[in-house]
């Protein structure tokens, strides 16, 4: 049942946008000017292309995120059962948490958290 609803929600979202787009396309006025389609840059024609290789700093954080996010995902199922297992849960996940914290500390030490 919930899966059906889930699909419904997604479809609703798509419908909302597409409907509005179609309406705007149908009703909205249209004019043409030669420079209209050019990217806006404070009224000056763009020099070169915008799609250049970006600074590596961004990707560094993306990698960090990937690493930690994947690991935190494992915490979800564990979190649910903590109050059933009590101390055992703590012991069982303690090592894992240690790795996680160590990873962060390592990244920090290596200066991966500094924005360059």
């Amino acid at each position, binding site marked *: 049942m919930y899966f059906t609803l889930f699909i419904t*929600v997604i479809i609703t979202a798509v419908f909302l946008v597409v409907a509005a787009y179609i309406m705007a396309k149908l009703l909205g006025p249209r004019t043409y000017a030669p420079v209209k389609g050019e*990217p806006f840059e404070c009224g000056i024609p763009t020099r070169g292309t915008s799609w250049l290789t970006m600074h590596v700093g961004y990707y560094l954080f993306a990698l960090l995120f990937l690493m930690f*996010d994947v690991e935190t995902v494992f*915490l979800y199922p564990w979190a649910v059962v903590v109050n059933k297992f009590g101390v055992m849960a703590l012991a069982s996940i303690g090592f894992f948490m240690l790795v996680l914290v160590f990873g962060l500390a390592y990244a920090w030490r290596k200066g991966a958290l500094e924005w360059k």
Partner: protein
Amino acid sequence: MFDFSIISTWFHDLLMNLIGCPEWLTILIECVVVGLLIIVGYALLAIALIFMERKVCAYFQCRLGPMRVGPWGLLQVFADVLKMLIKEIFFVDKADKLLYALAPILVIMGSIGAFAFLPWNKGAIVLDFNVGIFLYTALSAIGVIGIFLAGWSSNNKYGVVSAMRGAVQMISYEMSLGLCLITACILTGTMQVSGIVEAQSGPFGWLIFQGHVPAIIAFLIFLVAGNAEANRGPFDLAEAESELTAGYHTEYSGMGFGFYYLAEFLNLFIVSGMTSLVFLGGWCPIHIGIAEFDAVMDYIPGIVWFLGKAFAIVWLLMWVKWTFPRLRIDQILTLEWKYLMPLALCNLVLMTVCVAFDITGIQYISYIVLAAIVVLAIIICVRAMKFRSAFARDQKLVGVDIAIKKDK
């Protein structure tokens, strides 16, 4: 406490038995109804929030805000929406057309998907998976892709820079957002939205009461991270008005821009809603264990409780937005990776310890008081120091007086 599921089951029976629709038709009708409800609620909330924002900021800024269109300017936002709906939509020539068109859909998908997890009332939750919270984080992450694609595909330099900023900021803050939710799950022992709310129903059952210190820390971190996740100032780097003109949606006109505008406010509401769901007990009324008082509280319907809590937090976040200047990209990342995330991790352990040794519940309220006092003291000290440093530098007045020569 009124249970909304009565209505839904009644509606279901109506279709199945009285009218006698076949299974598939029933489900289809129900889905359509749900879809309509979502769209209507989404639109109405967005309009309410936009109006609220304008009035709130106007009053902060000694202005009046919209007041001429309709009574007290109530119709202002409708006028805006109407205008956007019929404003020209066009594509940039050199843009990546497919992604350019796809981006708003993703953003809205993310925000509506998350929106569907909010518990409006007992039994009035659209999506009530047993992995609800987990799925919520997954869905809300779609918005990041949308924003990134918008900036990147529109082939605009401000857009590209802003897309990079937005992506790196939002994914970073997902970390502490997730960790705070996990912290909550540890206490409630379930990821199902309704389950989480139920777990907070008892006297002083709200999580910030039950989980005292760790829960409060998680609550604060969640507020900050959520604010950053919703891309609102002081974290509005992605669409830094004064730096990148309009950021990732620079090239979007009419409704294309309108959807980002909607999504921004709805994300704000979703964050507030999630905060009230996870930490303030969703639609649970406040109970203090005295039967009469609790009974009176129960008379107030759950949706009022939920909306009340949510809008209180919305107002708080608006207050923050209109007060603080914008942060810089490196400062934002430092804040997340060096302060919030380690804190969230330690907080997670702390919560685990509390749960494992079963030191949760209202009797530890004293901890809260203690913590509150400490935090207050720290804040005051910091402010005081700031002031002193500032005014110390102010005193450095150097009167200069030199004999004047002019070559006359």
